[in-house]
């Protein structure tokens, strides 16, 4: 080799050095993998155990286990491993300690393990919750909570939030609520339920038609349209408090949407004749006109940075989604597929807009990414699906659907997976509006 070396070897050496970084990473072969086998993280949640030797109330334990499992499952992040597969001695639960035989959990494929312990003295409870990484064999989170029996749900939800923060670095959805319209009382009234559809309570009792609830970005205000004065006016109300304001200009006053981070909102009004979108103060005073076009402009939805606003306009014929730069006033058409696109909802992550697209007499939910402008259809062949609304972390979308006959509220992931009914109530439910995170901390 060395004999005939000389120049060629030097060239070869140079080539070798030149191509080395491109061909391999560090000093080894590189294999590419771009398609995860599972899009959910396998998680195991064994039943709660008693914290001290005295037996806890089995019903309470069961309740706590259910809340924990259902809440984490609701996120769509995890694949809950069937309890039947757990390697446990029959009738025994996993002690709420750090002494875990991780092999029992890695064998059944669990990457994450959440254990809970509970002890009850009178109406007071102590709850210990832990999150483990089974493969690394270490505890990621450990919390002990003290409260009354009624606090079990808030305690567990608080822990769930910590789990999500630990795993993703972002807040979860467990502090959020969903406002929607229900006809259960015989009129269209606004109700508010928890993120998972539990404990719905009426918010309006106007005895007329109330529509389009919209949360302010601090979650303290709700704006909506109501026909109390026999025409659509906008009502602005504190969610917990008695302050309120009404926007009752001549003509229609509809589709309110709050500007993120501000006590201002936008709404469609027609007091000048044509339907245009106006900017209003939180107390209902008109600040300025945002859109100006001969066509009707309505249904505003704001980008999380409040620099852009999406809305519906029929300026080119059928209704389509447009986006407007607030500073420059420049308007751009966003949707070109389908002839009837309405109800834009800007994702809290800022990169996508969900909307309803009508074909025939049925709506379906789509999202369009703002970079590539490619629509992605999320619902299909399941009745009419409309009114998309994003969860505060942008991972889920609530919407209404007639797939089971009457219109009800459903939830799916941001990519259309795991579509399930949110709640069952008398009457029909529609136009869900997902709140921001509502907790103070």
């Amino acid at each position, binding site marked *: 080799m060395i004999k005939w070396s000389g120049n060629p070897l030097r060239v070869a050496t140079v080539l070798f050095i030149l191509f080395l970084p491109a061909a391999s990473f560090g000093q080894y072969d590189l294999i590419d993998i771009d*398609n995860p086998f599972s899009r959910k993280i396998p998680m195991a949640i064994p039943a709660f155990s008693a914290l001290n030797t005295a037996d806890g109330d089995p019903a309470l334990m069961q309740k706590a286990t259910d809340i924990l499992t259902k809440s984490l499952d609701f996120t769509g*992040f995890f694949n809950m491993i069937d309890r039947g597969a757990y390697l446990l001695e029959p009738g025994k639960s996993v002690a709420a300690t750090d002494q875990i035989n991780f092999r029992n959990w890695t064998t059944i494929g669990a990457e994450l393990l959440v254990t809970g312990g509970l002890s009850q003295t009178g109406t007071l409870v102590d709850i210990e919750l832990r999150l483990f990484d089974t493969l690394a064999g270490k505890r990621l989170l450990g919390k002990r909570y003290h409260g009354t029996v009624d606090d079990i749900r808030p305690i567990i939800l608080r822990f769930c939030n910590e789990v999500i923060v630990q795993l993703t670095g972002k807040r979860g959805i467990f502090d959020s609520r969903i406002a929607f319209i229900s006809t259960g009382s015989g009129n269209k009234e606004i109700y508010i339920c928890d993120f998972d559809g539990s404990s719905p309570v009426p918010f309006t009792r106007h005895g007329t038609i109330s529509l389009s609830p919209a949360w302010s970005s601090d979650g303290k205000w709700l704006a909506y349209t109501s026909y109390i004065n026999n025409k659509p006016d906008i009502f602005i109300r504190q969610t917990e408090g008695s302050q309120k304001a009404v926007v009752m200009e001549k003509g229609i006053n509809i589709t309110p949407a709050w500007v993120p981070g501000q006590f201002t909102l936008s709404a469609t009004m027609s007091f000048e004749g044509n339907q245009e979108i106006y900017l209003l103060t939180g107390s209902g005073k008109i600040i300025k006109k945002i859109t100006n076009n001969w066509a009707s402009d309505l249904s505003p939805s704001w980008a999380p940075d409040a620099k852009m606003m999406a809305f519906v306009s029929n300026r080119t014929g059928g209704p389509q989604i447009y986006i407007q730069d607030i500073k420059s006033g420049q308007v751009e058409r966003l949707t070109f597929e389908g002839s009837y696109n309405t109800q834009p909802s800007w994702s809290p992550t800022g990169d996508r807009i969900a909307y309803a697209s009508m074909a025939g007499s049925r709506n379906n939910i789509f999202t369009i990414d703002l970079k590539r402008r490619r629509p992605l259809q999320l619902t299909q062949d399941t009745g009419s699906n409309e009114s998309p609304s994003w969860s505060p972390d942008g991972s889920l979308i609530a919407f209404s659907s007639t797939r089971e006959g009457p219109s009800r509220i459903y939830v799916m992931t941001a990519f259309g997976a795991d579509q399930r009914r949110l709640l069952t109530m008398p009457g029909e439910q529609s136009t869900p509006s997902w709140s921001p995170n509502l907790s103070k901390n």
Partner: protein
Amino acid sequence: MKERVSHVDATRIAGSDGGGRTLIACVAISFLLHVALAVVLMTMPALTPSRKFIPSAVNVSLVSLPALGSGAANAPAADKPAAAATVPEKPAVVQEPVKPAPVKPPPAPAKPEAEVSTAPAVKPEKKKESLKHKTFKSSEAIKSAVSKIEKETAEKPQSSLAETLDRLKQQVEKEDPRRKAGAGEGTGQTGTVFGSSAGTGLSSTQFRDQVQVYQAEIAYQVQKNWAFSELMSSGRTELETVIGFKIRPNGEIADIWYDQRSGDAHLDESAYRAIVKSSPLPPLPAGLFKGDYTVGIRFGPKGIK
């Protein structure tokens, strides 16, 4: 249209006293038509051809791998044509050989079937002579098809692993253009490994092939163990994590380290876990590597497909 023409004619006749009125009428009609066209153009929204919508994403939970099941499923299927084969041995009945056709499993060659089924339909007058001949032929054809299927079924369980590896190998090669380019360069690409090929007695292509087969096995194992949720990540698609690790001769994964973090905690950790879960890998092929084999995996979720 006809009406309009006659209307114009009528105006012309009526307005024979002066060309001015005819002209005004013509201009008016032309103007109306233009307005009508403009209105139609403005109010027709969907003149652009609607593109096909992208189907939505669907979650599928896999309970078990299909490999074992498919072998078992084929067995009863193979019995059926055997039963069918006995049918034509009866004194040739016109319809008989046609009937078993739908029962046949898909792998059976279509040709003999087609001959049998088209014959009575196309040339019913030649029935007797040609049918005897063809039925005879078809029974033979069915027999051979059945034996072929049986053979295939017997071979299947063995070949499926080899097929999978082959497929993965092709995939890995296809997906990494850099690897190909590197392979072209020869010495550069295989890095630590190439040095040891001298002692194996393999040609460099043989050696490279064997290494790639083993790499395909690694990719298969790790990919199978990778659970990553787009919803939990920051949602960006250009994320990339590179993790290096050492494989002991017995297949055990020894060291694991990050060579490049993506900045997305969920991706980094999910990738790390996938490698931990993949230990032990299949033992290193004998004589291919000197000591441990160091390899890196680049995890780059491409988003929902």
